[in-house]
């Protein structure tokens, strides 16, 4: 459904130097896929997300939705793309209009992308909030009047209300307390199982990513250094960077520290 073909992105940095944010990358994402993309700051994860969403144009290669170039989509095709591919980002505070209610934010894609009437959209909001076990009373509040975990659930509701075929989660739980992370991760997994949609889970946190993914893509310095089945990448990493990353987690885990 989304295909990256040798997609690359360069930026012009200070002193006119060229920054290679993302080196040529091939990736195919279909509904039903669960792809985890891990890497640290500066590894190119966010650039990849922006390319997949059509928010930026690749400097070389292409990003295809079905068989059309994402950056060239317009009209009904663009609307279809926005319906099929949705994002849940990291910063829930800045992704909501502070002056409007949460209900308003969740309802908007239903009005604009699905073309529902206000009454139909409101019913859809209630339905999606119920599926996430969110108290519908909260939806009359403004974003600053709910906790970070609740706000993230509204961000998820806003993405799920159009029934996307592919959900892109960019550091979606990184800012949440560990007690809330688990619940949100479970909600992503439930959604994928219920709807058959694909999930692209992008994070620097390996355990959460591994939990949600069948396939892991490891990025480092703008390159994909390794990809494969999740248990292979976690337990038998091939690239030295991946081995170092998994080693850091093992160092902090129960079995290793007690042995140390």
């Amino acid at each position: 459904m989304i295909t990256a073909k040798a997609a690359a992105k360069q930026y012009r940095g200070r002193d006119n130097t060229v920054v290679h944010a993302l080196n040529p990358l091939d990736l195919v994402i279909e509904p039903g896929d669960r792809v985890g993309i891990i890497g640290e700051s500066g590894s190119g994860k966010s650039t990849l997300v922006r390319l997949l969403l059509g928010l930026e144009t690749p400097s070389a290669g292409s990003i295809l939705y079905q068989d059309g170039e994402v950056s060239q989509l317009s009209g009904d095709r663009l609307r279809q793309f926005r319906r099929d591919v949705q994002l849940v980002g990291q910063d829930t505070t800045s992704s909501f209009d502070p002056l409007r209610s949460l209900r308003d934010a969740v309802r908007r894609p239903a009005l604009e992308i699905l073309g529902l009437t206000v009454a139909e959209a409101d019913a859809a909001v209630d339905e999606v909030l119920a599926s996430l076990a969110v108290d519908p009373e909260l939806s009359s509040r403004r974003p600053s009047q709910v906790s970070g975990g609740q706000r993230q659930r509204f961000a998820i509701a806003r993405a799920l209300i159009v029934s996307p075929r592919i959900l892109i989660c960019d550091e979606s739980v990184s800012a949440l307390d560990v007690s809330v992370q688990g619940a949100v991760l479970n909600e992503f997994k439930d959604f994928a199982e219920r709807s058959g949609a694909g999930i692209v889970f992008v994070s620097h946190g390996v355990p959460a990513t591994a939990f949600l993914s069948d396939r892991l893509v490891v990025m480092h310095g703008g390159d994909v250094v390794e990809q494969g089945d999740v248990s292979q990448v976690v337990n038998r990493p091939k690239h030295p960077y991946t081995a170092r990353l998994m080693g850091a987690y093992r160092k902090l885990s129960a079995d290793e520290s007690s042995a140390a």
Partner: protein
Amino acid sequence: MPGDVGLRAANAVEVADLRVRYRTPDGWFTAVSDFSLTVSSGQRVAIVGESGSGKSSVCMALAGLLPLGAAVEATTARIIETDLTARPTRAIPYQVPGVSVVFQNAMNALDPVWTVGSQLGTAIRGRGATSRARARVLAGEWLERVGIRDPARVLRARPYELSGGMRQRVMIAIALCSQPELLIADEPTSALDVTLSVDLLELITSLTADLGTTLLMITHDIGLCRAYSDRVVVMHRGRVVEQGDTEQVLAAPSADYTAALLACAPSLGQLNDHRLTTMVGVS
């Protein structure tokens, strides 16, 4: 660098019945109550808890850095040689002598206008009479000590010209160059990647061990707490729910809250688990 460790008090921190309140438009908000903690010199203690648990309020109170609108009360509050309860209030909060703090966000904690050399030099000169030239040399040595490979360049750089990890190393150098008795590290690596977190915690714990500095670390990361603390204090909603030897508490928590917190931290051992444990129902 010669460490003039000298005589140290047996306990770096002795706090009993600490309460921290903030003045809000709706009246007083109590962030911390009934907090008691004794830390003997040279120990590494981690305070763990979620957002809103009061862990940062405790640490800022112990460092003397809470704003004027905050009220700190305690039956005992001795930090190194300072009695917090007998300390005069000033318009601008001032740090307790012998205490250094490493903050979570080095970008905000460092001054964007001055070079690293100038800020580190100021911290070194604050310790005692040292010429500017000598402070410069010591600053370079401290940068090497915190693992910066090209100290000459970094001394001339301003904070925004450095990576997040480098900035955090600079802040560690600034905090430790005064050879403090107590280092308070407030989520020192939570904005950083895990490989870097591990490197920086290794650095902090080895330098504090060399200097004989007591370490009080705030974190929400059970893994960091497990690997880098001797004792742990678990906080929830402004109160201590459990404290003790780190290994014991994590292996066999006595409070339900601690057990729930441990159970819901995702680990690499859960690849095939269908669902993650959540905290629903625990309060």
